[in-house]
């Protein structure tokens, strides 16, 4: 029989890493159930990671002598971390003005160099053309990676020309089963263009009439959805 959560929490507070793992396993149903409340707003795996942080914070201050069950004590901590996670990912990412200015300059330079060379540029090439040092380019790219994707609704529908038969054939080849069915059709098309037809981000960008960095964000969001669906299928051990 496994050790009660209240005793595990006490061991966690004393720095016992093995107890922390046991506690996280024991409380996984609580974290998973609370994550369901925010599902669809941010990736489920991010919510569950935030929930685990909340659990461990709760364990650090839990006092079993008060007679409160650990689950009841920990729930507000878990909820608090999940709310923070939702707020951070739902709100526009706030970056210093200089980084925001560099982000715009880097995005424009990437488009320019891609058009000139017919390939994606290196960081050194971007830095040289934009007259920035490489660290500033990397900061701008990190900010860009963290930005939320722009809606696919902005793309003209006729640019998503694939038929349902084409989509289904490629989905079968990718062996992703029914997981893609849960994504909206346009997200499925972006994944199919990249992984089924093996078009590069640049080629997809040209086809959809958007920038390569925009394609990157769309792919990342769609893949996060798939990875999270996969997590549901995975054994929990």
């Amino acid at each position: 029989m496994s050790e009660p959560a209240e005793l595990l929490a006490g061991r966690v507070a004393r720095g016992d890493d093995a107890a922390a793992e046991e506690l996280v396993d024991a409380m996984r149903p609580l974290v998973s159930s609370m994550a369901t409340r925010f599902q669809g707003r941010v990736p489920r795996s991010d919510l569950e990671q935030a929930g685990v942080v909340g659990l461990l914070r709760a364990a650090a201050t839990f006092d079993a002598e008060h007679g409160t069950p650990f689950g009841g004590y920990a729930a507000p901590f878990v909820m608090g971390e999940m709310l923070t996670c939702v707020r951070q990912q739902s709100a526009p990412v706030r970056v210093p003005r200089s980084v925001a200015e560099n982000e715009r300059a880097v995005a424009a330079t990437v488009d320019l160099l891609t058009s000139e060379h017919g390939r994606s540029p290196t960081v050194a090439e971007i830095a040289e053309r934009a007259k920035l040092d490489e660290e500033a380019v990397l900061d701008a790219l990190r900010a860009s990676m963290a930005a939320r994707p722009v809606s696919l609704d902005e793309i003209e529908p006729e640019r998503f020309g694939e038929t349902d038969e084409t989509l289904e054939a490629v989905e079968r080849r990718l062996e992703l089963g029914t997981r893609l069915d849960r994504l909206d059709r346009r997200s499925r098309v972006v994944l199919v263009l990249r992984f089924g037809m093996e078009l590069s981000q640049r080629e997809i960008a040209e086809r959809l009439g958007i920038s390569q960095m925009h394609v990157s964000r769309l792919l990342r969001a769609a893949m996060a959805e798939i990875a999270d669906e996969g997590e549901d299928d995975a054994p929990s051990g």
Partner: protein
Amino acid sequence: MRTRLSAAAPQVAVLGPLALVMGSRAGLSLEQIDDLAMAIELVVRHRRDERGAEFWAEPGSLEVFISEVDQAWLEQHLGMLAVLVSETELDAGGVRLRVNV
């Protein structure tokens, strides 16, 4: 560069920027770095586990090893990973991803 990440660590938020910096050192294109970051994200998002990550950069190539990855899941997703990186290899309970210029 080698790092060990707990199950509770924000693994995507740590490894994505590392791939960016190491990819830049290796002279990879922005798209190659981005595809590698997506491959890493796909692997670590699959299941929340403690795991290690190692990066080796040299001019013209970058290799990343991620440990403690479910091999059955990896085999199912090798097709997607192969689109994102130049070489993919299952190795010692983890996966080795390599990108060549």
